[in-house]
C-alpha cells in the first residue's frame, strides 16, 4: 500500500533539526576533514523520549524507523540501518534524498552511481554492490555508454566542489542507496502490493451518468444518515462500560484463568475443564450464562442445560425450532428447500408433532413465505421464538432446579503456578477426528431410536479431547 507516513515523518525530521529545540549536534572529525552536524545515537533517543513522552525502548524503536527510512543515516557501520543508543554518530539526510520526495528510484540512477564509484577507485565496490553492478551491466548493456558518460560527468562535477562538501555529499548519496538498494533482503521501502486506488492522487469528479447517480445516492444517504444520527445518540458510553465491567473477571488478560492460562503454564487443564460438553462445568462458566440469554445459547454446555430444563417444562420445541432455523439460514443452498419444508411439517403445520406457539400474524407471513422459500423465510418466526425464550423461559431457567443444581455442582479449580515447561505440551484430538466421532454417534442414535442428546454429548466429552498421556507421566 502506498506509503502515507511520509508527511508526519517529514515534520519529525524538520523538528529534530531545529537548532534551538532539536537534537544537539557537533562537528565530527573524520580523518583530516570535519563532518559538520553529527549527532550521537543516545542523544537522538533522549530527544525522542522527551519530545513524545515515551520510554527508552519505544524511543529507540521510533529512532530505528527513522534510520530505516533514510531520514537519519549512520556515519560508521553504514550498511546496518539501526539506531544505536550510544555514542555512535549519525547525520540528518538532506531533504533532497528523503523518501517523502517520492522520486522514482531508477535502476539507471543506481547504475550511474556504481559506475561513478568504480571510476573514482577501482575495487571500491563491496561484494553485494559488485554483484548488482554486474547484473545491471548485463541488463542495461544497451544504455551502458550513456551510463558511463553520466558517471564521468558527475564525477567531474564532484571534483569541482570543495572537499568538505564533497565528503558530505558522498556520505549522503551512499546512505540513500543503502536505503533503496539494501545489501540484505529486508528493506523499509518494501510496502507490499499496490492498492488499486492511490490515496495521494487527486480525486477526479467525472461528469458521466453513473457518477451522477452515485453522487445523488451519496447525497441522499448523507441526509438520511444525518437525520438518523440525531435520533439515536442514546446512552453510548454506559453500554460499553457495562459490558467491560460485567466481563472483567472473565477476561484472561485482566484476571487469572483457573487453574492457569495454558499458554503461560504449559498445562492444558483449563481447556479440558471447559470442554464443549463436559458433565460438570466450572463456576466461572456458569456465571457467564447468567449475563445474557445470548451467552447461555452460544455456550454448547449452557445450551445443553437449557435444553434439559425446557424438556422438563415440555417446551423443548422452541429451542429445537430455533436451532432448525439457524441450520436453514447458514446451511448449504442445495438442501435449503427440503429443510424449510421439514421445519414446516415438524413445527408450524396444523397438528404438527412439535407445534410452536407463534402469533397469528407471524404465522400468516411465514406460511405465505414458505410458498417460495429462501434462507431467510423463517426470520420473523425465529425472532419471535427467540424473544419468547429470552423474555420468558430464560428467566424461569435461572430460577429452576436444573440450573441451581448445575450451579451447585459447578467446580472452582485452584490456581496452580506451574512453570513454563515445553515438555508438558501434549497434542489434542484433531477437530476432524472429533467430527467423525460425532457423526458415528449420530448414526448409532438414528439406528437405535430417540436418546437424550445431552447423554450422548457428555459421553463424547468423557472420551476426552486429549490424547492419553504416556503411562507413568502426569
Amino acid at each position, binding site marked *: 500500500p502506498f506509503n502515507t507516513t511520509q508527511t508526519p515523518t517529514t515534520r519529525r525530521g524538520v523538528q529534530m533539526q531545529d537548532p534551538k529545540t532539536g537534537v544537539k549536534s557537533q562537528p565530527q572529525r573524520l580523518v583530516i576533514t570535519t563532518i559538520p552536524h553529527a549527532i550521537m545515537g543516545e542523544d537522538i533517543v533522549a530527544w525522542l523520549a522527551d519530545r513524545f513522552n515515551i520510554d527508552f525502548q519505544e524511543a529507540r524503536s521510533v529512532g530505528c524507523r527513522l534510520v530505516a527510512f533514510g531520514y537519519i543515516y549512520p556515519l560508521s557501520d553504514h550498511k546496518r540501518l539501526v539506531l544505536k543508543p550510544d555514542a555512535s554518530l549519525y547525520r540528518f539526510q538532506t531533504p533532497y534524498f528523503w523518501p517523502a520526495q517520492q522520486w522514482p528510484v531508477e535502476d539507471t540512477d543506481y547504475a550511474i552511481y556504481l559506475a561513478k564509484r568504480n571510476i573514482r577507485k577501482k575495487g571500491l565496490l563491496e561484494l553485494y554492490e559488485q554483484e548488482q553492478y554486474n547484473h545491471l551491466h548485463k541488463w542495461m548493456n544497451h544504455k551502458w555508454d550513456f551510463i558511463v558518460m553520466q558517471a564521468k560527468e558527475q564525477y567531474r562535477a564532484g571534483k569541482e566542489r570543495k572537499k568538505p562538501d564533497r565528503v558530505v555529499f558522498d556520505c549522503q548519496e551512499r546512505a540513500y542507496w543503502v536505503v533503496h538498494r539494501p545489501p540484505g533482503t529486508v528493506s523499509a521501502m518494501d510496502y507490499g502490493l499496490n492498492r488499486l486506488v492511490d490515496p495521494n492522487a487527486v480525486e477526479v469528479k467525472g461528469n458521466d451518468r453513473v457518477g451522477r447517480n452515485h453522487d445523488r445516492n451519496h447525497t441522499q444517504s448523507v441526509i438520511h444518515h444525518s437525520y438518523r444520527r440525531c435520533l439515536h445518540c442514546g446512552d*453510548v458510553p454506559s453500554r460499553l462500560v457495562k459490558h467491560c465491567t460485567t466481563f472483567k473477571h472473565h477476561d484472561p488478560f485482566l484476571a487469572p484463568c483457573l487453574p492457569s492460562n495454558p499458554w503461560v503454564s504449559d498445562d492444558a487443564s483449563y481447556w479440558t475443564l471447559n470442554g464443549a460438553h463436559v458433565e460438570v462445568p466450572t463456576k466461572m462458566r456458569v456465571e457467564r450464562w447468567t449475563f445474557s440469554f445470548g451467552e447461555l445459547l452460544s455456550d454448547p454446555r449452557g445450551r445443553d442445560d437449557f435444553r434439559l430444563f425446557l424438556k422438563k417444562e415440555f417446551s423443548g420445541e422452541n429451542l429445537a425450532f430455533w436451532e432448525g432455523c439457524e441450520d436453514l439460514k447458514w446451511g448449504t443452498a442445495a438442501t435449503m428447500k427440503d429443510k424449510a419444508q421439514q421445519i414446516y411439517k415438524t413445527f408450524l403445520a396444523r397438528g404438527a408433532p412439535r407445534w410452536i406457539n407463534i402469533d397469528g400474524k407471524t404465522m400468516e407471513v411465514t406460511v405465505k413465505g414458505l410458498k417460495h422459500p429462501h434462507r431467510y423465510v423463517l426470520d420473523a418466526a425465529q425472532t419471535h421464538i427467540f424473544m419468547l425464550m429470552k423474555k420468558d423461559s430464560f428467566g424461569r431457567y435461572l430460577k429452576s432446579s436444573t440450573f441451581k443444581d448445575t450451579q451447585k455442582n459447578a467446580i472452582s479449580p485452584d490456581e496452580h503456578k506451574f512453570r513454563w515447561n515445553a515438555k508438558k505440551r501434549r497434542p489434542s484430538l484433531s477437530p476432524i477426528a472429533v467430527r467423525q466421532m460425532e457423526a458415528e454417534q449420530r448414526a448409532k442414535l438414528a439406528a437405535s431410536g430417540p436418546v437424550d442428546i445431552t447423554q450422548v454429548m457428555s459421553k463424547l466429552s468423557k472420551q476426552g479431547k486429549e490424547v492419553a498421556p504416556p503411562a507413568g507421566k502426569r
Partner: protein
Amino acid sequence: MRGVTSARQQHQLAEAGEPWWRQRESERKRPNTRTSSTIPSPLCASSLKMACQALQSGESLATLKNESDSLKKKLEEERAKLHDVELNQVAEKVELVSALSIRTRRVLKGHGNKVLCMDWCKDKRRLVSSSQDGKVIVWDGYTLNKEHAVTMPCTWVMACAYAPSGCAVACGGLDNKCSVYPLSLDKNENLAAKKKSVAMHTNYLSGCSFTNSDMQLLTSSGDGTCALWDVESGQLLQSFHGHTADVLSLNLAPSETGNTFVSGGCDKKANVWDMRSGQNVQSFETHDSDINCVKYYPTGDAFASASDDGTCRLYDLRADREVAVYQKDSIIFGASSVDFSLSGRLLFAGYNDYTINVWDVLKGNRISVLFGHENRVSCVKVSPDGTSFASASWDTSLRIWA
C-alpha cells in the same frame, strides 16, 4: 410482529437488539435513556423537507451537495448543544487496568516469506496462516506442530480463514479467488486435490470469513465489492456494492440474531451491511486514510477500525458515530490490524512500525507497547476463548502472546 405490537413490546424489541432500521418511524424514540437527546423535530423535519424538495425539483448536484453539507453542519451544531456524554467521561469512574505482563509465549517459524494473514480454529489452539509465497500452514499453536500445509497456485495469499467445524480452511489472494480446502487426517494426502473454488472476484481477494457454518463464505476484494457464497455449489448468494475503492477487510457481527457485517476499504469508509438484502445500512467516514482492518466489539453494537493514518477508532452503531480515537504523537506508522480482548476492555493493534500497542478501550490511553517482531505486523487476532492473541508478521514468523 408487524401487526398489533404494544409500545412495551416495541421497546423490548429495541432493547433486544432488533436492528434499528427494521423499526418503523414511530417506533424509533428510545425511552429510558439517561442522556437521551432528541433534536427539536421542527428543525429536522423542515430541513429534510427542503432537501427532499431539492431532490425532486431536479436541481443540480452542486446545490444538492451544498444542501446536504449545510444540513450536516446544522445537525452537528444542534448536537453540540445537547451535551452528549463522551465515552472517556463516563469511563473516569472505571478503575484503571492494572499493569499487564504480556509476553511472547510461542514463536511459530516455518513460513519462508511474509506472513499476511492468520485465523484461529474454534478449538482455541489451532490456527491457519498464509504467506506471500503462496504457502498456507495449519498449526497446533500449543505444541508448535505443523499439521497441514498447502501450496496455493498464486502468491500474496492475503486472506485465510478456519472453518467453524475445524475441518477445512479457506484462502485466496492474487488469484482473485477464494478456495476451500477440506483438511484430512492422512498426512500423505494432497490437500490441493480436494480443493473447491468458491468465490470469484475481478480483483485480488483481501479478506474471507466463514459465517456460522462451513457452508457459507463471505469475501472482500480489491474490486471494491464484498460477496456471500454458497460453498457447496460456488453460487453467489448476495453481493455488496457501495465502496468506491478496494475493500481491505471484513468482520461478521457476533450477535446470535444478527445478520450484519462491517467492511473497511481504501475509500476511508467503514460500511455496515445487511446480509439479507445486500443493503449498506450504515457508513462511517472519519479516517484520513485507508482502513486496513475492522473488528466488532464483543456485544456487536460497536466496532473498531485500524488505518494507515496511524489511528484506531471506535464507532458505535446505535449512536451512529465515532466515539473514540486511539492515537499518539509517537505513532506515525499505519495500523494494520486490531482485535478486542474478551471483555472488550483491551484493544490490541498491530502496526507497520513492527510493534503491537495495547489500548484501554474505555479510557483511550495506551497501556503498553509490545516489541518482538522484526518487520511489519500484518494481522492480530485474539483466540476464541480470549486466553491469548496471535500476531502475524512480515518477518516470516507468528507469535502467540499471553
